[in-house]
């Protein structure tokens, strides 16, 4: 089966998922992001790589943060950015997803940044659009959030350098998390030897170990000796029902407190894709503490998104 992300020369045509991307492609994105880090510290924060290109932020699901970081990244590359929150406009009028995409294509879009509540929606769009168009998945259902996975691995590489001897724990609601899936693929592709997922059985998907991870239900065991702890966001609607009895109980078993963090390596870093639920999955003392690299993640995210866009535009 042809990988829909790659063009006939094996180059990145779309960024839909971290899964299936060659190791060299991942490294190329991370190295390119490195070169953009300096730009964001400069007085004039712009480069002309996407001048004259139109980037459409196509958000079928609300997100201020991710949309903003894509917008900033595109603007720093000198692109024209058009933001569309589709859930409030055309689909409620009965227009189909592909009709919407056709209309926007007719407005001479060059790149679509797509967020959608349904897993796989960006694939449908990528398979439908003309070959000069590029699609970046900004989060589809539970499936993938590749730029987040890339910025996470970028952050890990920034602080830990050698990926070949790391232990990384991903904690919490893996079942519903596109962030977890993308990060796990990035970690395994780049040869991180010890990837762990920690959570109650209700929040781990069937056969998750087939993704190349070790499964822990006891957080104390799972965190032992870790270099990196990635906390996942727990959505409000999952907090009480048949998946979990309460946010309090979740925090007791799986919330990251200074005491639990002490089980990890002394120089462990703590990450979170945001937005955080303080007191649900993470204690404020940890979120704001010396191990936290949660805010640098956001900064790196812009460089990583600039890297992805510039590479796609160049192919």
């Amino acid at each position: 089966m042809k990988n829909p992300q790659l063009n006939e020369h094996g180059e990145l045509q779309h960024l839909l998922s971290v899964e299936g991307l060659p190791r060299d492609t991942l490294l190329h994105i991370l190295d390119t992001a490195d070169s953009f880090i300096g730009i964001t510290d400069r007085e004039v924060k712009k480069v002309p790589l996407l001048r004259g290109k139109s980037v459409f932020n196509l958000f079928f699901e609300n997100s201020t943060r991710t949309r903003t970081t894509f917008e900033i990244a595109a603007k720093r590359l000198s692109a024209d950015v058009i933001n569309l929150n589709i859930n409030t406009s055309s689909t409620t009028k009965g227009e189909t997803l592909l009709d919407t995409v056709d209309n926007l294509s007719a407005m001479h879009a060059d790149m679509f940044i797509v967020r959608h509540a349904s897993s796989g929606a960006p694939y449908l769009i990528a398979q439908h659009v003309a070959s000069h168009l590029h699609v970046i998945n900004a989060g589809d259902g539970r499936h993938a959030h590749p730029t987040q996975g890339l910025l996470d691995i970028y952050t890990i590489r920034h602080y830990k350098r050698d990926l070949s001897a790391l232990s990384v724990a991903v904690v919490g609601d893996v079942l519903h998390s596109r962030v977890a899936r993308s990060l796990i693929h990035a970690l395994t592709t780049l040869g991180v030897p010890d990837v762990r997922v920690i959570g109650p059985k209700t929040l781990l998907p069937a056969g998750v170990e087939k993704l190349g991870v070790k499964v822990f239900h006891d957080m104390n065991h799972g965190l032992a000796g870790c270099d990196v702890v990635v906390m996942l966001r727990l959505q409000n609607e999952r907090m009480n029902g048949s998946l979990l009895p309460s946010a309090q109980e979740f925090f007791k078993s799986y919330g990251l407190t200074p005491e639990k963090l002490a089980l990890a390596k002394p120089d462990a870093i703590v990450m979170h894709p945001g937005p955080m639920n303080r007191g649900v999955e993470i204690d404020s003392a940890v979120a704001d503490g010396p191990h936290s690299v949660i805010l640098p993640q956001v900064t790196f995210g812009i460089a990583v998104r600039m890297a992805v866009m510039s590479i796609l535009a160049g192919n």
Partner: protein
Amino acid sequence: MKLHIKNGRFIDPRSGTDTKQDVFIAAGHIVALGSAPADFKAGRVIDASGLIVAPGLVDLSVRLREPGFEYKATLETEMHAATAGGITSLACPPDTDPPLDEPGLVEMLKHRARSLNLVHVYPLGALTVQLAGKRLTEMVLLQEAGCMAFSQADAPLADTQVLWRALQYASTFEFPVWLRPQDGFLAQGGVAHDGEVATRLGLAGIPASAETIAIATIVQLVRDTGARVHLQRLSTARGVELVRAAKAEGLPISCDVSAHHAHLSEMDLGYFDARCHVIPPFRSGRDRDALRQGLADGAIDALCSDHAPVDDDAKQLPFAEAEPGATGLELLLPLALKWGAELKLPLLKTLAVVTDRPARILGIPAGSLAVGEAADVCIFDADAMQRVTAETLKSQGKNTPFLGTELPGRVRYTLVGGQVVFEG
């Protein structure tokens, strides 16, 4: 018109015959095999040299989409598709709009089907009013109107009290009940097999236990009520084992599997291929292998097309939002042949699962080519390979995971009641 089918390889699973012999048809019935009866003068001679002459296929699950969903398909288009697939009798589930829960609706459907005069259509009546799972339908009146059995189609029947009573009531009159085993609560929100692929693609899963729990419940209620139950479209290895055990116990239970499930697994979802969004979901390779084996050893009685034409607009959507279902009428014979060839079964055995056995389950005089039987015949070339394309499919539904693949078997003639209704 009198018809003489000559030089064909005659295969009749019911009598266990596989031999070169001619078939003679008069007044819609088979009047002789081998040599012509005295003063038989054929009005037409069909030369079946190099072809198989078999009973017309009997398909246990065909959605004709009438009434209510004519934009997806109509009786006429789908009956033509059936004849192109060599199918001469079919059962249609009651999940039309409105559902088949009133005698008038059933009579109208039967009348519409009869007036088209193509294939025999056997409606299944709704087991509960509006398929809502609460009130029993007027089964006696529905049976008089032409319903062969009663079914919930894919609508859940969560209330086991209602299921228990429905089986008691149906068995009072010896009406068979056809159920697709699925626990509605466990299946809720799911769109794919709860396993490796759904985890990777981030699709909500339906665990295998959604099927096995339902089968276990039904088996126990059959034990209690004595109702005759046909389980439709099994999808799990464990489900096959439960049915095997129930049959060994002597319970009046039969089951079928869809032709798609005999070939495909969760792996075929690829990159969110919505054509593989079907009900029940494609499960693991191990499950698929058990279904194929169960069909060969008799644990599963029949192979059906599970024909469910879906219009493009309803399929061109993200996987979970796309309407489930695949077109199947014209693929039933090719997929049966492919299955049989892969398991190295004799044609006699392969064809039994689409002719003799489903006819017995439906309780209709079909699926056999004995003298005196109605002349419902499928004449096909078993070796011809054909590529499945939107253009070759006669069904209004062009959605199938097999689009673009080459499959064996090409129907050359389909006869219903001695009339040639398809020539290809």
